[in-house]
């Protein structure tokens, strides 16, 4: 297949610094060398490509926008966004791995952790010497995490955790988990606190969720807590209530808004090249009117998404980004990516269903990406509330 080329219809490269472009090209080469050759196989087997974990650490993409004093690269958010874009061009599962580690494990430790916690965990996580997961969702509470059942009760200098989490990315690969639990009554979401639970703590069990049809090259697990005794120093001191986990989700959704564009661009590139070569009814597929309509729609949506992501990153760098803007960007960019993947799949005819052409893999992956980190319904309700002042969640 032709070498991947990302579209840049609005000369967005001119908005990127030389370093940003350098970061993007470096991660793109990394994906070409380390992800593309193995991803079909991993996807078919339903395995995360574990071999790339230390390489991601070496590359320095984990928590790349966190400060250097914790072993991170201290990058701006455009560069961080581009990292996500390039990883997801490879596979949403690879980007998910990095997102969870960066935004859902490193970020909460950085933002809500004590100095000791930061020093202990962040450099190890940045180097991928330890892997983390993020446990918020439960079997009965996904879109509405405030209903969570998992509880933590203080007993001397320890917290005793009971409950279960489900759909947890990296669960089975993880050395630590940032787990959210109520410390007060079951109807008191203000009592939600974050705990760093370590693999091997008695009563902590993890079971991989198999037979997925989406994000097959990502590890998804259930976490079980039966009287798990977590030392006091493993509680994140600066997160109280749902604001804690939601603050992490804002970080992760930012990365997804960029990441989804990578998947969209991969599908567009494949469809464009395929249509140029495939002859139907005596001429290239790309010379047919309906095909051109499909391709222009893809390019238009990608271009809009790129502009949105770029502006979002600039606002984030300036400390002005709102979670509503993140909601809109995540919702829009995942939505268009999924639609582009579906149309690309269609344009490739029967070949479109083969792993070899990647588009069906992206398409199936994006169904998960649309659901996790706030479904489109949830984001549209958030933006609806912003516009009207009425909460229509419940």
């Amino acid at each position, binding site marked *: 297949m032709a*070498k991947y080329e990302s579209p840049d219809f609005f000369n967005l490269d001119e908005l990127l610094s*030389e*370093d940003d472009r*350098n*970061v993007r090209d*470096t991660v793109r*080469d*990394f994906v070409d060398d380390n992800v593309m050759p193995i991803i079909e196989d991993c996807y078919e087997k339903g395995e995360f490509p574990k071999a790339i974990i230390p390489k991601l650490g*070496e*590359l*320095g*993409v984990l928590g*790349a926008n966190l400060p*250097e004093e914790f072993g991170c*690269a*201290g*990058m701006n958010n455009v*560069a961080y966004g581009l*990292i996500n874009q390039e990883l997801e061009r490879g596979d949403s599962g690879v980007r998910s791995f990095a997102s969870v580690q960066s935004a859902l494990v490193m970020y909460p430790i950085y933002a809500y952790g004590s100095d000791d916690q930061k020093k202990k965990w962040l450099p190890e996580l940045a180097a991928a010497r330890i892997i983390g997961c993020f446990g918020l969702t439960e079997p009965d509470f996904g879109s509405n995490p405030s209903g969570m059942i998992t509880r933590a009760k203080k007993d001397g200098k320890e917290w005793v955790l009971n409950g279960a989490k489900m759909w947890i990315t990296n669960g089975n690969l993880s050395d630590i988990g940032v787990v959210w639990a109520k410390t007060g009554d079951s109807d008191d979401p203000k009592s939600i606190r974050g705990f760093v639970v370590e693999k091997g703590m008695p009563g902590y069990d993890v079971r991989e969720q198999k037979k997925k049809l989406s994000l097959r090259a990502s590890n998804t697990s259930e976490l079980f807590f039966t009287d798990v005794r977590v030392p006091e120093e493993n509680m994140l001191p600066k997160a109280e209530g749902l604001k804690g986990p939601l603050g992490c989700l804002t970080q992760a959704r930012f990365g997804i808004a960029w990441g989804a564009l990578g998947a969209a661009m991969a599908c567009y590139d494949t469809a464009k090249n395929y249509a140029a070569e495939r002859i139907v009814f005596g001429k290239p597929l790309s010379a047919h009117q309906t095909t051109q309509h499909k391709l222009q729609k893809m390019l238009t949506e990608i271009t809009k998404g790129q502009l949105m992501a770029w502006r979002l990153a600039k606002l984030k760098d300036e400390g002005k980004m709102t979670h509503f803007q993140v909601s809109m960007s995540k919702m829009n960019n995942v939505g268009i990516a999924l639609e582009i993947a579906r149309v690309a799949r269609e344009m490739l005819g029967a070949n479109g269903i083969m792993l070899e052409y990647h588009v069906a893999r992206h398409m199936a992956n994006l169904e998960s990406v649309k659901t996790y980190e706030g479904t489109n319904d949830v984001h549209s309700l958030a933006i609806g509330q912003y516009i009207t002042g009425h909460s229509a969640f419940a």
Partner: protein
Amino acid sequence: MEIVVCIRRAPTTDARIKPAADGKNYEPAGINYDISEYDKFAIEAAIQLKEKHTGKVTVLCMGSKEATKEVRTAIAMGCDAAELLVDEAFRDSWATASALAARLKSLPHDIVLFGWNSVDNQSASTGQMVAELLGLPSVSVAVSMEVADGAAQIERLAAGGKREKYYIKLPAVVTCQKGLNKYRSPNMKGIMAAKKTVVAETPANAPADGVAVLRLQPPPPRADGKIVGKGADAVNELVRLLREEAKVI
């Protein structure tokens, strides 16, 4: 150890080179540049030497100010300091070697590493010229290198795929070939370090070119292939033509 690595900014190997309107240079529009491929093996060798023996790697590049990008990439890969000898023209090996040698006279060096050949100019001579100008021993086309006790043991690729082994005293010049190592990519911390590194710029002290380009022209287009027939019937004719006309069997 003081290690110097000389790198060139060159079109990427997939660039489509077209002669410019003056018929002497190539058309720069639409061309992407990178560190000339073999220079990356030299950079990797330099970084490995530093990692093993401690010391400092200085990148030296003669080129236009735009070459700052390639110099920074070398820093991002792990080099420590960088100098750009600014010269905006496309210079020949002699001018380049002279400018590099002039600078190296006052730049400490235990070993000076080059790519064995540039991917654009392809004269495969700059490294050796620098060695001669500085009066240093040199080995070209190195595919393995061990440095210890002020000397280097180097294997080079010779004609016919043979390998020759040399022992040379440092300081020396070595030009590097694919196979010497597998070069690393820059990582995120490297890119951030490169951003902060000041690239020293001085005008290149280069003499006039020794080579004059009279005309640059693309090779003639390849003639169309010939279809000699279809199926098994065509085999005899194909064999006859390969033997009598093409004379390859």
